[in-house]
């Protein structure tokens, strides 16, 4: 759907489904699932190179950075300082200026620390990075992030890996009306209907990982997610009928057989 491309900071994205690379059985399965999902954006973490086991395969041997847009994340960072350090290293690796900024506030919920996220975003925007922040479904924080130069925001649907789906569709709607940048729902979706709902609401894209990688059959779920995004996006653009309490007949009354 090139005519419906998503553009963020001048970068054209051909898929509205973005996927993570964690929790797969092996790199071969990761590759297959990503191919089946049709995603052209994959998020990766930034970690120490394994210097003991040098023969170990690298993810980028399977996920070609020429074919996919690599979105490094700052997953696992609990302070603005650590997130900035990680993001700057990711940028220095030389593949992309994009970063999915995550500053986690709590181990149990993995909810973002919005205050620290703002602080880190400010520093990274100043350094010229394209900062896509993972954030609570809070319109005020979303607005503040856009004000400091984030070209998109990534509100959560539910806690990371929870599979609970869109917990607060109304907040997402308010975010969409509050900021004029793309909204990418990040984290918490469980299945294809969750993804479709996010897109029907008018969100611009969905990023997920566990819902595919943790499914019994990740490859089939990746396909389901692909269709969920497409169906939801089409439905959004088509414009749904309003909800009404009572029935409206869809067959004409005229010409009915009489008594």
């Amino acid at each position: 759907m090139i005519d419906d491309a998503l553009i963020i900071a001048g970068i054209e994205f051909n898929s509205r489904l973005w996927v993570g690379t964690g929790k797969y059985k092996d790199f071969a399965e990761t590759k297959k699932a990503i191919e089946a999902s049709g995603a052209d954006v994959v998020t990766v973490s930034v970690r120490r190179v394994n210097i003991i086991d040098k023969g170990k395969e690298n993810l980028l041997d399977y996920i070609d950075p020429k074919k996919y847009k690599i979105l490094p994340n700052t997953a696992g960072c609990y302070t603005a300082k650590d997130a900035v350090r990680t993001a700057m290293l990711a940028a220095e690796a030389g593949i992309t200026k994009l970063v999915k900024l995550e500053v986690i506030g709590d181990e149990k919920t993995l909810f973002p620390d919005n205050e620290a996220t703002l602080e880190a975003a400010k520093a990274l925007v100043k350094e010229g990075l394209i900062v896509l922040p993972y954030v609570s479904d809070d319109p005020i924080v979303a607005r503040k992030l856009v004000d400091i130069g984030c070209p998109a925001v990534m509100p959560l649907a539910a806690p990371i890996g929870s599979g609970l789906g869109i917990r607060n569709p109304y907040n997402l709607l308010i975010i969409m009306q509050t900021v004029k940048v793309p909204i990418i729902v990040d984290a918490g979706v469980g299945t294809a209907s969750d993804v479709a709902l996010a897109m029907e609401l008018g969100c611009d894209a969905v990023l997920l990982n566990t819902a595919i990688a943790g499914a019994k059959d990740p490859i089939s779920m990746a396909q389901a997610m692909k269709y969920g995004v497409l169906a939801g996006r089409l439905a959004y653009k088509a414009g749904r009928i309003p909800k009404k309490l009572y029935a409206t007949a869809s067959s004409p009354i005229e010409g009915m057989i009489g008594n």
Partner: protein
Amino acid sequence: MTITLNGEKKQMPDGITVIALLEFLKIQRQRVAVELNREIVKKDLYGTTAIKEGDSLEVVSFMAGGGFEF
């Protein structure tokens, strides 16, 4: 000399440069980023940046991970 590489003590030849260290470790420099004593080393300075006794290095790359991952 002893340096700390990705959190572990390692013996390296005196005055080894960043580029020589990466070659020694058989690490493709295109896909990594390097920190020397918490300062990022720009790729074009790998050849001229010498590592000293007691220095601490971080060599990172992109790994699997979606949201929170260890």
